[in-house]
């Protein structure tokens, strides 16, 4: 039991340690600020919350930029850190939150649910994700996880006048709380085994306990809980309903940022703490990855609702990201990190087109709503095509680089000499490769609607400056990462190498 330290000067202590949580602090302060000034904003102009949120995100980015070169190191008695891994993911969360905020304000007007709390909650959720990415202790990790989860529970149910939004929130909340409980149970067992909540310490203590039932139990409990968060099969049941019911902007946010945050702790726990006892879980993880890719894709084949279709596709993408973790090397972590980055842009882009189709009185969610989009708005349709091709993994787009890396990571392990799991790795790669083919089929169902069917629904799209910016940024990065991935690869590599 570590001794509880004596803090003489609380302010001094906080000042010394706060560098590591600077971005989070900015977000929380700005988020609270939004809630405080809410009463000053006239009811018609609640959309201004978006501007405050952008201010918070901007300040957090500035903070991140200050500490880009220098690593503040573990702070608050080894609770959080701002190593390169955390910074990489913080950048990703900030990008996702920024894009989500600016794609939201028009959408919320259309849904008639414009409230400043929405933006505050996005900031809180982002702060929670940052705590997760920087957590090197089970306690801070769990607090971050809860901060993020609770914020997103509320956000999912934000369209309170809509039945399905409420249903989605309720489903997400109940299952989510259950999964959190399972994670917590696993953590408590782990603490009992290792006597510490620090991930590095746990990693040292559990070496040699490979045959300990409690360790196996705690490990699989945490895996199950985390798989729920990243939406891996068989813990994915909530995803289609929650994604369909939630405000589309929040669905977009969840599908990239929440998923990336859950992956960041997945890496921290399973790569860092459990890296040495990989033998216990490698087979289960590989099977989960394969089943996730396959089931996500197969279920997406028959969806006629685009939100559900993209929900299933995001399940299958989680399986691809898991491949990097299955490889279990730093190259594997690099691969997953690149995948998540590419996925952030291409998926947010695809979702923003769905938001564009949500017009007054038109849900814009079914395949028919995409009919003939090309003839009326060729640029939008071509962008959507680019996002879909990228999601499917066709070069030269971001998704191809992402898929290339996860395949490479798995095959590298398979071909390295003395590897006990060669054939398992090859299977994972082959299943992944064949899943690329399956995914093309359902993405192209929408492409067919857009480019070949002609009965266009004659209502103007809900353009807004923010959405256009989102489309331009996501489109640009989707192409850029595909054509010149070098800088992004070095970022991801630095992130994975700092994970020690």
């Amino acid at each position: 039991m570590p001794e509880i330290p004596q803090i003489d000067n609380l302010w001094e202590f906080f000042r010394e340690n706060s560098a590591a949580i600077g971005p989070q602090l900015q977000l929380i302060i700005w988020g609270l600020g939004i809630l405080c000034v809410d009463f000053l904003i006239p009811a018609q102009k609640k959309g201004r919350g978006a501007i405050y949120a952008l201010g918070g995100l901007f300040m957090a980015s500035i903070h991140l930029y200050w500490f880009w070169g220098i690593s503040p190191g573990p702070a608050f008695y080894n609770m959080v850190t701002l190593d390169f891994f955390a910074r990489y993911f913080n950048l990703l969360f900030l990008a996702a939150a920024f894009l989500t905020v600016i794609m939201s304000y028009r959408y919320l007007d259309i849904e008639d649910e414009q409230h400043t709390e929405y933006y505050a909650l996005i900031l809180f959720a982002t702060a929670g994700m940052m705590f997760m990415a920087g957590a090197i202790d089970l306690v801070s990790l769990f607090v971050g996880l809860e901060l993020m989860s609770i914020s997103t529970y509320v956000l999912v149910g934000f369209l309170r006048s809509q039945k399905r939004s409420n249903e989605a929130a309720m489903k997400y909340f109940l299952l989510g709380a259950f999964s959190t409980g399972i994670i917590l149970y696993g953590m408590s067992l782990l603490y009992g085994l290792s006597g510490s909540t620090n991930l590095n310490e746990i990693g040292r203590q559990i070496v040699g306990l490979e045959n300990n039932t409690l360790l196996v139990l705690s490990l699989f409990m945490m895996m199950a809980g985390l798989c729920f968060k990243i939406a891996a099969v068989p813990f994915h049941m909530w995803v289609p309903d929650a994604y369909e019911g939630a405000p589309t902007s929040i669905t977009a946010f969840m599908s990239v940022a929440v998923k990336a945050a859950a992956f960041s702790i997945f890496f921290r726990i399973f790569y860092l703490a459990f890296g040495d006892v990989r033998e216990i879980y490698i087979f289960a993880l590989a099977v989960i990855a394969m089943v996730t890719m396959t089931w996500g894709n197969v279920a997406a084949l028959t969806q006629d609702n685009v939100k559900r279709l993209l929900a299933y596709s995001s399940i299958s993408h989680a399986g691809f990201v898991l491949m990097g973790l299955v490889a279990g090397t730093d190259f594997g972590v690099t691969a997953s990190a690149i995948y998540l980055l590419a996925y952030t842009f291409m998926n947010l882009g695809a979702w923003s087109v769905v938001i564009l189709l949500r017009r007054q009185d038109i849900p814009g969610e079914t395949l028919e709503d995409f009919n003939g989009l090309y003839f009326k708005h060729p640029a939008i349709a071509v962008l959507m095509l680019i996002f879909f091709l990228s999601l499917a993994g066709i070069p030269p787009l971001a998704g191809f680089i992402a898929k290339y890396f996860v395949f490479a990571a798995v095959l590298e392990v398979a071909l390295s000499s003395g590897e006990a799991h060669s054939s398992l790795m090859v299977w994972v790669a082959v299943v992944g490769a064949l899943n690329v083919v399956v995914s093309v089929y359902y993405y192209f169902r929408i492409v067919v609607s857009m480019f070949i069917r002609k009965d266009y629904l004659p209502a103007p799209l809900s353009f807004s400056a923010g959405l256009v910016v989102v489309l331009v940024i996501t489109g640009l990065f989707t192409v850029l990462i595909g054509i010149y991935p070098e800088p992004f690869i070095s970022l991801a590599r630095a992130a994975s190498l700092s994970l020690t």
Partner: protein
Amino acid sequence: MSFFMENILNFVCFFPLIGVVLIVLWPKGKEHENGVKWVANIVALIGFLISIPLITAFNDPRYIDTATGMRFVIRKSWIDAIGAQYYFAIDGISLLLVLLTTLLGFIAILSSWSAITERVREYYCYFLILQVGMLGVFMAFDFFLFYVFWEVMLVPMYFIIGVWGGPRKLYAAIKFFLYTLAGSVLLLLGILALYFYQHSVTGVWSFDILGMQQLSIPLELQQWIFLALFFGFAIKVPMFPFHTWLPDAHVEAPTAGSVILAAILLKMGTYGFVRLSLPILPEATMEFLPWLLVLSVIGIIYGALVAMMQKDMKKLVAYSSVSHLGFCMLGVFVATPVALEGGILQMINHGISTGALFLIVGIIYERRHTRMIADYGGLSHIMPVFATVFLIMTLSSIGMPTLNGFIGEFMVLQGVFADPIYKLWALFGVLGIVLGAAYMLWLYQRVMFGELDDPENRNFPDLNWRELATFVPLIILAFWIGLYPKTFLDYLHAPVNQIVERVRPGEFPLLPVQVAVKE
């Protein structure tokens, strides 16, 4: 000029993109569509013209890379983190295929002038993008870059079939896409395996194809990689039993799409075998040889038999492709010098003759909008020029002496017969030729001869100048290869020798290489 010549492969490959940009910026509206057509045709023509210096300067020592013997090398770093390079180069095999691509790309675009009436703008955009993808495949000597181009061409082809195709276009388009993609992703895994093996031996992260050709990989690993590559290439060729996407795609595609599909896209598969599978994985090739020959021969005979029973002209030509490409693959896999060279020449020949046959089907289809053989008959009475062209191309396809098909088929048979073990497989090849003559001549007879009894056919105009122009270069080439193949074979000797030395070292006398280096 020297800047142009040093970057000529960049220009040849990416020049069509200029056309895409122009077409996108071209004023909108129905009345400007003629302008779009002109732009596309001119760009494609210039694309062909700027590829001609590749021949004239091919043996110019300034553009020969002394270390590898490659021509017009452009090599720049691209993704350092994984060692992928931007590496363009050509050798004799690539040269012929690049020229075939630029020429047939132009012909296909020219042939679309009156066939495509809606969404003209996009049509030409897709065609020009397709052109970039195909040229890139034949020029890339970095496996990663190769793969990028290999996949890039799927999307425009999907749209060409899916938008401008026949009644079952959506089915055919997605079938084409999915089949090819399934092969491609396995190909990607094979590439990665090669990449990691190369790193484990040399310590260098590189996708250099020529570097990979130097490796000696353990047989078991070779076999696995061969299988991965085989799926990628065999589906594209297509070899029996992976051919089922081809008739659908051909039948539904618009005429120009079929032309490009048959003449160029399928060659990407055979090219993959010649450039990659054989030289990188020679032992595995020899190990699998009996199976490969069985599949090739089944392709030859099955394709021919099915072609004979077709009622739809386009389907007939499509199945004849399966048969002819089986012939190509027979020559390529046996890998005796003459057979390999014949197989490669047969790739070019098939591009010329089958490309022309699809144009021919397109021409009568445009006149009556049916492809059923039974709807026609006696067309030679009213379309004499067309009858001549059709006859030449029919004879070219069945391997009539003095025409190109004969040379290719003869070389393949001769080469196969030179192999001590598999010499009798040549018999199946002969059978394929006989069947080929049967279905092609029968087709010609039913469409062109007999009474002109159907009143709907009476008013067919003969070929106009534009249609004739699409055939002239192909006819010239058919006779040229048939009468004096040396012009073309000279470019093939050196690369073929290299491959044979890798696959069957010391077994056969190599082809004579005349180094005609200009001073």
